[in-house]
C-alpha cells in the first residue's frame, strides 16, 4: 500500500496535487473532464470583500512556453462565494481552499472572518502576491513586515489553516517566508506569477489591457523550483509548490526540492486532465522507485547537499 496523503499545515489531502487559484474557477467548470473527488485539494479564485469587475481585455497573452494574465481579481465577492458557491462544493470529499485578497489589511481580515466556520472551507490561501491589481496584492507581498502584518490579521480572524502565497518578484524570498512563518502562517504557497509584459509590434502598444501581467506556465518552472528549494532549507513550514507544472516529472521536481504538495495551474488550460494524470503518475513513480510514502520524497534532493 502506498501512502499518498499529506498534511499541508493542517489541511489533510488524500494526495499531494491541488489546483492553483485562478486557473480552475470554482472547480465546477472542470467537472466535465475529471472527478473533483480525486483531487488532493481545490484552490479557488481570489476572493475579495466586494465583487470585482477585473481588468479590461485583452487579459492574456501567450509567451514562449508560458502566458501572461491580467485578470485583475474579477470575482463575485466573499458573500456570494460563501453563500452560493461554496455550498455547491461542500459535498465533495476534497478540501476546498479559498484564495483571499484585498486592498488593505482589514480587507484580508474581513474576508477571512466571513469564511471562518463556513462549512466546506478547509483553509485559506492569502494572496499577497497578485501582480495585477493597483492596490494591495503584490504590495504586501514585497515587504516582509507588511506580509507578516497581513498574516497576523488573517490568523486572528479565523481558526482555519492559513497558507501564505509568496511572490517571486522579490530580492529575498527567504526573508519573506521567514517573516510570515514568524507571523503564524501554517504553510507557504509558492510561487505566484512573475511580473511580465508583452508588446504588440504591429500596433506598437502593450498587448494586455492592463499593460503588465503575471507570467505563468512551464517558462517559470526553474524559478519556482529554485524558490521552493531555497525556502525549504531555511523555513520549517510545509510548502505548496507551483509554477509551470505540466507533468508528473515537473511535480516531482517540486516535491524533491521540498514541497509537501503541489498545485497545477496553467496546465489545466492545456490538458484538463493534467491533475489526474499527475496524481496517477506520482503513485507510479513511488511504486517503481520503491517508496511507500509520498512524504519520503519531500526535500529528498537536498540529501548530502
Amino acid at each position, binding site marked *: 500500500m502506498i501512502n499518498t496523503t499529506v498534511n499541508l499545515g493542517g489541511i489533510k489531502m488524500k494526495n499531494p496535487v491541488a489546483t492553483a487559484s*485562478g*486557473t480552475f474557477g470554482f472547480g465546477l467548470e472542470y467537472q466535465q473532464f475529471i472527478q473533483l473527488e480525486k483531487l488532493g485539494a481545490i484552490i479557488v479564485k481570489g476572493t475579495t470583500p466586494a465583487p470585482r469587475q477585473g481588468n479590461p481585455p*485583452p487579459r492574456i497573452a501567450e509567451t514562449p512556453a508560458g502566458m501572461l494574465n491580467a485578470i485583475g481579481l474579477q470575482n463575485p465577492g466573499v458573500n456570494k462565494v460563501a453563500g452560493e458557491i461554496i455550498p455547491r462544493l461542500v459535498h465533495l470529499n476534497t478540501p476546498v481552499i479559498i484564495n483571499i485578497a484585498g486592498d488593505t489589511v482589514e480587507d484580508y481580515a474581513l474576508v477571512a472572518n466571513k469564511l471562518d466556520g463556513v462549512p466546506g472551507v478547509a483553509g485559506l490561501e492569502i494572496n499577497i502576491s497578485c501582480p495585477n491589481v493597483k492596490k494591495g496584492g503584490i504590495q504586501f507581498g514585497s515587504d516582509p513586515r507588511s506580509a507578516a502584518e497581513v498574516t497576523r490579521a488573517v490568523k486572528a480572524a479565523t481558526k482555519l489553516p492559513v497558507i501564505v502565497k509568496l511572490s517571486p518578484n522579490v530580492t529575498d524570498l527567504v526573508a519573506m517566508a521567514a517573516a510570515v512563518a514568524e507571523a503564524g502562517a501554517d504553510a507557504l504557497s509558492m510561487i505566484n506569477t512573475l511580473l511580465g509584459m508583452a508588446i504588440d509590434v504591429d500596433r506598437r502598444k502593450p498587448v494586455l489591457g492592463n499593460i503588465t501581467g503575471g507570467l505563468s506556465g512551464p517558462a517559470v518552472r526553474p524559478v519556482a523550483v529554485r524558490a521552493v528549494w531555497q525556502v525549504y532549507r531555511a523555513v520549517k513550514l510545509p510548502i505548496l509548490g507551483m509554477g509551470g507544472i505540466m507533468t508528473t516529472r515537473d511535480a516531482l521536481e517540486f516535491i524533491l526540492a521540498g514541497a509537501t504538495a503541489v498545485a497545477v495551474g496553467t496546465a489545466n488550460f492545456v490538458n484538463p486532465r493534467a491533475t489526474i494524470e499527475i496524481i496517477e503518475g506520482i503513485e507510479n513513480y513511488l511504486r517503481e522507485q520503491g517508496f511507500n510514502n509520498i512524504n519520503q520524497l519531500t526535500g529528498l534532493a537536498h540529501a548530502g547537499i
Partner: protein
Amino acid sequence: MALLVQGEIVSHMERAPGVFMVEFIAPNLATVARPGQFLHIRCSEGNDPLLRRPISIHAVDRDRGRVGILFQVVGRGTALLARRKDGVIDVMGPLGRGFSTGSHNLMRAGSIAVVGGGIGAAPLFFLLQELARCGDPARVKVLLGARSANQILIKEEIENLGYTMELATDDGSVGHRGQVTELLLKLLPEGVSYVYACGPAPMLKAVCAFLSEAGIPGEVSLEERMACGVGACLSCACQVKAAGGGVHYRRACVDGPVFPAGEVVW
C-alpha cells in the same frame, strides 16, 4: 458537457490561400455539437506554443461521425495545425453557447439573413446545415464578404444546401465591390426579421449598429483570447450590457461566443 477527443484526421485541404479545411472522426462530438459552438484545439505537443486555439465547428456529418473545421493561418498555432495532415487532432468541445436556432427564430414572419466576413464564414456553414435541416432555405439569405474572390469560402457548399447568396469583395473581383455590411443594409428593409453574423470586429460592430437602428434582432459571434475555454480562468472577458443597465464582463467561452446583437458593447 464537453468532450476530450483525439480525432483521427480523415481529410485535409487548402481551400483558399492560407485557409485550411480539416475533417476528423468524432462521432460523439458530432452528435452533441450545436452551430456556433467551438473547439479548443492543441496545436503543438510541446510547450511552445502552449495554449489551445479556439476554432469554430465548421461542419458536422452526424451520419459518418465527422466534424470539420475551417481555419486561416494567422500565427504559429494555426500554422502548426495546418501542417498536421494525418494522425490525430486533440480537441476539447463542443464549447460555448452557439447560435439560437430554436423554432422561435425560424417561425418569425420575414426572412433570415446570415452574414459572414472572411473566415467568419466558418461557423455559419454549420448554422446553415442546421437551418436547412429544420427550416426552409428559401427564407434564408446568405451574405458573404471577403477581400477578394479567391477568399470567398465554401460558396458551392452553401449553394448545395439550397441557399441563395450575395457576395461582396473589397476589390470587386466578385459580387458587390465593398463591404458585406452594405449588402445587409440594403437587405434589412426587405423584410428581414433575424440576423446571424460572424466576422471581424469592425464588421460585427457595423452589423450591430444597423440592427439597433432598424430595430431588428440578431446575434453575433465574438472573438476573444482564451486560455481555458471552459469558463474557469476569466481570460476572455467581453463587455456586454447588464440587465439592470450599465455594463459588465461576460466570458466569451461559456456565456458566448454568440451574443445577442443588442447586448454587445463596442
